[in-house]
């Protein structure tokens, strides 16, 4: 135990090139974590696209239904974006139907409730539509399919001067299949296929990165053993058996891998969140929060297992070559 503590102590002072080893493990792990977390996050966002084409929770029809909310729907081109604008006498009911989360108040006359994705267009709480300045009463923060939508009152829609289609929104019966209002190009099958394809490509990238991590760890472990051969000789001369040394080196590799993977996890997850947040502020893109889930933990486990094994092999191999 004291031998292991001594070796760990040497390592903690930055000897045996542990800094490089931890840096390597953390960088590779960080890359894998960032790719995986962002991919999962985008995959979750893409689910919202599927909702656009097939949403079973809300039934939409052109004929009146019992308990339905009358909605005047129109589209609008604003600064190169095509937006959906929905007007209802009772915006509160429409929001409830959509299960939307709203930051702020409901729109009154001359006011708009704006999707979160359009916040950059609403300077100082005012959105200009067709030259008409309209006050933003609040923002719709979820669901994602309303990110580029505007909810307002019929009076405001008339003031804007847009032609609209009258639709009736009602709660769909439990288990009902939604009637697709639009199938192509954002049909659920296409979105699902593209997402799946992207995820599998990124998964291959993750595997390549972990394989590279294993090889690098083995080489660095070998070099580190070579670096520490004098110290190892001292321990041997003090009576440490080869078995004890091997055991200590394995514990060292397990500890270093744990430190590297933990740091990599922090770098990858926090780094991708910081980059996405900064881009969101600088370029007005939506902030995509990296999603850390079970899949990510699986990748972390793989990185840890591979790096610690490769590092152990490298350290032991280097120690044996030295012939101590």
């Amino acid at each position, binding site marked *: 135990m004291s031998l292991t503590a001594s070796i760990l102590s040497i390592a903690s002072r930055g000897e045996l090139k542990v800094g490089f080893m931890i840096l390597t493990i953390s960088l590779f792990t960080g890359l894998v974590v960032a790719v995986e977390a962002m991919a999962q996050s985008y995959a979750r966002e893409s689910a919202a696209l599927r909702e656009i084409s097939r949403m079973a929770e809300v039934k939409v029809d052109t004929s009146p239904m019992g308990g339905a909310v009358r909605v005047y729907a129109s589209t609008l081109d604003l600064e190169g974006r095509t937006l959906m604008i929905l007007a209802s006498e009772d915006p509160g009911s429409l929001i409830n139907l959509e299960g939307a989360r709203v930051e702020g*108040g409901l729109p009154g006359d001359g006011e708009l409730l704006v999707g979160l994705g359009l916040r950059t267009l609403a300077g100082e*709480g005012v959105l200009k539509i067709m030259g008409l300045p309209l006050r933003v009463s609040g923002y719709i923060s979820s669901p994602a399919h309303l990110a580029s939508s505007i909810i307002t009152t019929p009076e405001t829609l008339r003031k804007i001067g847009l032609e609209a289609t009258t639709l009736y929104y009602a709660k769909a019966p439990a288990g009902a299949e939604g009637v697709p209002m639009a199938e192509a190009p954002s049909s659920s099958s296409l979105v699902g296929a593209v997402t799946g394809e992207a995820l599998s490509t990124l998964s291959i990238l993750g595997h390549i990165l972990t394989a590279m991590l294993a090889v690098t760890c083995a080489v660095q472990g070998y070099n580190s053993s070579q670096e520490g051969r004098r110290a190892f000789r001292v321990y041997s001369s003090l009576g440490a058996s080869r078995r004890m040394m091997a055991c200590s080196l394995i514990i060292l590799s397990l500890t270093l891998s744990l430190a590297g993977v933990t740091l990599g996890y922090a770098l990858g*997850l*926090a780094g991708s969140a910081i980059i996405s947040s900064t881009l969101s502020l600088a370029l007005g893109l939506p902030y995509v929060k990296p999603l850390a889930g079970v899949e*990510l933990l699986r990748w972390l486990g793989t990185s840890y297992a591979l790096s610690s094994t490769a590092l152990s092999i490298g350290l032991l191999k280097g120690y044996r070559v030295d012939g101590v």
Partner: protein
Amino acid sequence: MIFSITFLVPLLPLLVRGAPFIGDSWVHMGLARGVLASGRYGLASYNERWPLVNFLLVFLSSLTGFSELQASWTVPLLVGLSALPLYALCRRLGLPRASALVPALFVSLNPLYAYVTFSGAVMKETSAFYLAVLLLHLASMGKYPSVGWMISMAVVGFGLVLGHHYASLVAFLSLWAYAAYGLFGWLRGENPPPKAILYAASAFTVPFSLWNWLNYLTLGAFFPIFEASDILLLLAVFTLSWFTLLADRGIISRRAPWLASSAFIISVLGLRGGLYIMAQPVEPITVWEARNYAVAAVFSLAGLSAGLDRGPLRAWAASTVSMVLFAPLWGQTMPGFTLLIKALHYYGILLAVGAGFTASWILRRRGGWLIVAATLIFMAYASSTGTILALNGLGAYGREEVELLRGISFSPGIKLYGDTRAAYLLPYTSNITASGLKPLRMLDEGSIMLLFRPNWEQGFLMGYDWVAREAIAPEDQLMGRGRVYDSAHLRIIT
């Protein structure tokens, strides 16, 4: 005199307006009154699951015979009293007497945010604040543990767990950060094995995990807006923050706490820079405000690196900086802003101790006391604007409002509308609930709307969002409506 200021600032809402700050206060006072009347305590709702503040009010009311409103004075008083463990902590960290007084003052006069909005409230987090500072002080004594120390840690830690989820999360992270720094120092041969703090962190983890897990099972959430993924993201940010303070020298080391400085910038951006998407319009930051922030940043951050040599402060920095950084990463909407405000309460302590170290350096120079005194006077001036605004803002209640509402009896079954202020106060004064906020033009026949003076002067609160007065009750519509009650502080409109 310094301690009298630190005791006085949290009591300002009660002294100036005659009522505690923020609506949550009425919920806890209502709960305490219910417990005093029935003798039973339920653990059903969110505000009952962290019961420290409720227990405190009930205990003091039954002990002294005071009403729960009078007993509520003790909560801001306790926040003020946290200046004492803060002073003791600073002395333990090696600050001379005069410099150790500076942090206590800086916490109360921090121009970064209006401290009174937190300290003057009667809520879970406020009641746990004293314990958070005390735990930090006790942790700093961990090198010389005694039976008394262990008992104190256990009592304070348990109180914190029962006090507030966010405060206990900060304590949890700080204790483990301290233990991890201690372990690393031990491996490097710099200090003995940190057994006491490891035991303390482990012991704290048990009730912290169990209590929050139980609450998660009951309420369906540990923290109302946290998902499992958010906790993993927080841990990632915390690990990064911990790591940046690990080394002794270099660009990424405790000598260059750039993450703590970044947290200050993020706080300013969050408060004034439009980092968050909110309904409330934020006035562009003026040169004078930027000057106030700059002075506060230089005074608090310049000496921080000297203090970060001490393990407890470094651990506190790792956890509180990560909480500030996490707030905008959680999301750029209102709940993210709430997280930032919460984080600032604890980050404020770090800044204050940093200010103590800066003051210590300045005081060693000739005429240093003059510079420190001038800076502190400037802090008082810079923070006074925010404090005055808060005391007259939508979150502040007045004695008159409470008394007026108590004097009015509402018919059972009447539909009553009002903003968040009314929604919090009505169940306490009149035992009825408001049906939310509605524009005056959409008011149903037979229903009434409650308007407090700040409503017709400043606007309305919907949740924590500001809504313009014109959107709810424009002057022309207000004039055209019937008034059931009209006074200088309260109007009831039909």
